[in-house]
């Protein structure tokens, strides 16, 4: 099912996700990221400027060498765009001032990659790549002062972990939005009313059955009963993910209302576990005429309506007139 991905507004991602200044400050404290780290990072600025191009090129060569990740960057415009953004990102790592604006930028970056569909593990894999690339260059640069190299590397690691936290937040946020949209779409699917035989209706219910959907379903069902003069209705709930007592009560209402219009209702698709659970919750299933599966339900419906299904080529059984007054007295 095609679902359009939500276009992320460029402003205010931190707000949208719920990352306030307190939360961000707490995370930095947790990572023990302090002003000393900031200074060390700023001290690496010249170094990063010098190596940014080769690091980014190496990074995307790496990504493109794997079929799985290359797939996301086939469009050259997308590739150019993300490369440019990554360059900015890389440089930004050592420009200090890791506050609101920095955070917003990080969130945007994560958002962009989520939207092109890059798996989060690939996105996070990028950080590992940076660290490897930078470690090598740091050791070169601070060859005579390895403790400084290590301290700088340490600070960078802290910042990258901070960034990873933000990237994960964005991915989760975007995924949740997509899920919410999809749930909404499912909820809005109206249940078709299928006329299986003359005066026998089948309603396959799929998706979440909340109150408003249950109401619509019952209304459509009752109108169909009148229109088709249905005598039997099969409600199949195989496609309903969670049948709890609320859903069961909605179904019971549909059953009761149908009975008032003279139609018998058979509910199919309730697994025996679910049925057991409902009975334990005090739901009166006897009114529901529950049958395990759709096929069984159709067989029961046929019996109620007095039909018998005979396969082509089979002997047609002698029709015994079952009406009492035709039997020999």
């Amino acid at each position, binding site marked *: 099912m095609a679902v359009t991905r939500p276009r992320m507004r460029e402003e205010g991602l931190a707000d949208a996700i719920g990352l306030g200044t307190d939360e961000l400050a707490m995370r930095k404290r947790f990572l023990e990221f302090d002003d000393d780290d900031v200074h060390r990072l700023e001290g690496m600025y010249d170094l990063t400027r010098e190596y940014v191009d080769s690091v980014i090129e190496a990074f995307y060569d790496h990504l493109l060498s794997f079929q799985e990740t290359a797939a996301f960057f086939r469009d050259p415009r997308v590739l150019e765009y993300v490369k440019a953004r990554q360059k900015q990102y890389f440089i930004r790592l050592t420009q200090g001032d890791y506050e609101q604006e920095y955070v917003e930028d990080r969130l945007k970056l994560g958002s962009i990659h989520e939207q092109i569909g890059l798996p989060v593990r690939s996105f996070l894999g990028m950080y590992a790549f940076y660290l490897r690339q930078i470690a090598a260059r740091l050791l070169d640069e601070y060859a005579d002062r390895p403790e400084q190299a290590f301290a700088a590397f340490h600070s960078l690691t802290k910042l990258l972990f901070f960034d990873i936290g933000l990237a994960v937040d964005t991915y989760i946020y975007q995924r949740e939005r997509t899920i919410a949209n999809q749930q909404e779409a499912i909820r809005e699917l109206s249940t078709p009313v299928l006329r299986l035989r003359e005066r026998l209706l089948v309603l396959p219910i799929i998706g979440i059955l909340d109150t408003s959907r249950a109401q619509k379903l*019952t*209304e459509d069902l*009752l*109108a169909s*009963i*009148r229109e088709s*003069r249905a*005598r039997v209705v099969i409600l199949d709930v195989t496609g309903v993910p969670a049948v709890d007592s609320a859903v069961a009560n909605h179904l019971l*209402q549909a059953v*009761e*209302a*149908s*009975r*008032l*219009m*003279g*139609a018998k209702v058979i509910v199919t698709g309730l697994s025996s576990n679910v049925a057991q659970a409902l009975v334990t919750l005090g739901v009166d299933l006897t009114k529901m005429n529950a049958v395990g599966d759709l096929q069984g339900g159709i067989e029961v419906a046929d019996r109620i309506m007095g039909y018998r299904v005979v396969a082509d080529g089979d002997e047609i059984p002698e029709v015994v007139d079952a*009406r*009492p*007054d035709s*039997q020999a*007295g």
Partner: protein
Amino acid sequence: MPVPILKQGDCLIASVQSALSDADLLELRDDLSDRVGRFRSKGVIIDVTVLDVLDSFASRTLRTIAEMVRLRGAETVIVGIQPDVAFAMVQLGLTLDGVTTVLDLEEGLAHLERSRRSQAAGARG
């Protein structure tokens, strides 16, 4: 306004014509009870197709009618409950338990016919 009651063979058919007040319902109850006795009817059909509301009093009265008719040896079938009305009744918790309800007059007559036949077969043993 009284509900017209037609006699068709050994069935009585009460066709509600308009919204029923409580008094109308009670009158219907008494009328049917009286006629079932007088004509020794075997079946009673109450056609509520026209009713746009069936509330708790109406529901109670219909059940009372069914009970009274049964005591006189006959069966009651309510026909013609409309979709909207069925829905509202269920919201209100009115189920007309114990009363036969079918789609329309045609079904109602068919039901009574089936009942009569199976009763006759039973009698023949």
